């Protein structure tokens, strides 16, 4: 119920933002149009009507999937964004995958051996990962790996192949080499987060009685870490990462601009700079919708994963 409310409020805010701050005629109509054209489009868009009626039209059209037509491309804004979405999702999923496969082992190690040099190094690394501005790291990575060393291509998406009707690039060598740097760049911040979470989890779990018992039974240390420790640190890591996936999509705006990755983040930045308002509105509405959905799914998953949450709800 609250999710629907949020989407509704956001649509209102975006609508007010675009239509009431500044002149909607200039924002929504191609600046090269002549007087007759302006009058016609104003009538079409209902700009000569009262504000609440205009908002009603906006909502009705949005529900029909019509969020306006881009000035620059001359195509429906929604279609343009949907076209770019797979690239962004691929990048975000790859970054998430990297954050997990690097973050959890490093974090668990730092949690089990906090006083060793490597453990301390991992922790300082994660502090640096929090402080480093993502876009600057991206630039420096291009400088090092693409310009100086020449190992990886600096920009673009590379060769793509269709998988279930969606173009993906991680199945070709060329695509993979294009994907590596942007995904790592995007993953850096979340990796630091995963390191911190799994370190805290490992530290806490390692002093529990069931770990002592497992050790007393003579179970191999590798098995204790992989099964007993890992299982218990997964709950906070999974839930936080679920919530942070939305953050990855939002932050891909930065990474996509640096690496010229043809996703929806790059589209929105170009649209803002070109004053392509329909795309801006469409992007914002879609992202808000995406976010509310992610939050809802994570909330539901959380109560499935951790029975304690449900018990609390019943009590309150």
């Amino acid at each position, binding site marked *: 119920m609250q999710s629907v409310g949020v989407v509704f409020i956001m649509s209102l805010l975006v609508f007010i933002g675009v239509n009431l*701050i500044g002149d909607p005629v200039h924002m929504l109509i191609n600046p090269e149009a002549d007087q007759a054209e302006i009058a016609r489009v104003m009538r079409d868009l209902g700009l000569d009507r009262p504000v609440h009626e205009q908002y009603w039209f906006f909502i009705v059209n949005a529900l029909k999937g019509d969020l306006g037509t881009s000035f620059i491309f001359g195509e429906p804004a929604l279609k343009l964004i949907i076209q770019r979405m797979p690239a962004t999702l691929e990048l975000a999923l790859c970054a998430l995958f990297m954050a997990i496969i690097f973050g959890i082992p490093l974090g668990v190690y730092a949690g089990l051996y906090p006083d060793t040099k490597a453990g301390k190094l991992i922790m300082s690394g994660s502090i640096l990962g*929090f*402080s480093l*501005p993502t*876009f*600057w790291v991206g630039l420096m990575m291009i400088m090092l790996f693409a310009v100086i060393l020449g190992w990886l291509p600096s920009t673009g998406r590379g060769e793509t192949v269709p998988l279930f009707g969606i173009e993906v690039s991680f199945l070709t060598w060329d695509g993979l080499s294009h994907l590596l740097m942007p995904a790592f760049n995007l993953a850096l911040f979340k990796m630091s987060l995963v390191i911190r979470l799994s370190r805290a989890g490992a530290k806490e779990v390692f002093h529990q009685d069931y770990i002592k018992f497992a050790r007393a039974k003579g179970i191999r240390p590798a098995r204790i870490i992989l099964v007993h420790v890992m299982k218990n640190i997964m709950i906070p890591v999974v839930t936080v990462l679920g919530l942070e996936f939305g953050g990855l999509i939002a932050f891909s705006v*930065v990474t996509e601009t640096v690496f010229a990755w043809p996703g929806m983040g790059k589209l929105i930045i170009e649209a803002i700079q070109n004053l392509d308002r329909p795309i801006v509105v469409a992007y914002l509405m879609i992202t808000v919708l995406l976010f509310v959905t992610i939050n809802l799914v994570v909330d539901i998953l959380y109560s499935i994963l951790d029975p304690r949450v449900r018990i609390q709800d019943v009590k309150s």
Partner: protein
Amino acid sequence: MTAQTQAAPLEAVETATKVVTPFRMFLRDYFESRTATAAFAFLLVIVFIAVFAPFISPTNPYDLAVVDIMDSRLPPFSQSFDGTMYWLGTDGAGRDLLSSIFYGLRTSLGVGVASGLIAMMLGGSFGLLAAYFGGKVDTVIMRIVDIQLSFPAILVALILLAVLGKGVDKIIVALVIVQWAYYARTIRASALVERRKEYVEAATCLALSHRRIVFKHLLPNCLPPMIVVVTVQTAHAISLEATLSFLGIGLPITEPSLGLLIANGFEYMMSMKYWISFFPGIALLVTIVTINLVGDQLRDVLNPRLQK
């Protein structure tokens, strides 16, 4: 509490007349850590550079009479034909990079601190109101906070700047709106605890006005956690502003922050002219890390739960 009682006799022996005020205790605790002391000294240097940038910069990078296009894209440690030394090289328009960084630091720090302080006042007031009055006021304010915090800061800033446009005032407005919720949440948490204490009850019995109780009694006791949030949030704000300016939707070209300087160097990266982006980035990184280190130590010192 025990740290206080342990240290008190020592102090008493050394200087019998000296009174151990909370502020002096705080200073002593803070400067116990060498890293934190170094970070604080660094922060002072950074603030000094930012405040006095026009006086200590080797050249004025935005004075067209001084800037010579012939000097453009010189590598670090090169000299202009008239003898000016460019320690960190020059950018595409022939501006001395070191001076540009000093001026950029001024803009970045100014925007970060201004938005942090305004957000603190705004968020702090809302948080205090929510905690003091409770009930419906609390529910409404905290629901707005929760909803806003469920979106990442960069997305909120993007929405606001897409609507507002470019400009120093606009980015400050955007950063304030992005940050206020953190302050509101922090101060509400501590104010809820403080509100149940006897001194508030006593003040209420004296029939003092709501305003007086909230600002004179409640607020000073909620400040310590706020100070920590201010440092952390200012670092965030500086980083976010740099990111937005880099994307070309933050500050206008006329107000070059560190983010814009980095963006300017982007086009020269492919021809190995690394320094135009590299050094402003280092300046940004050092600023953020320094503020974060100071904030970390403040959190340790001011958190009553961590005091042994």
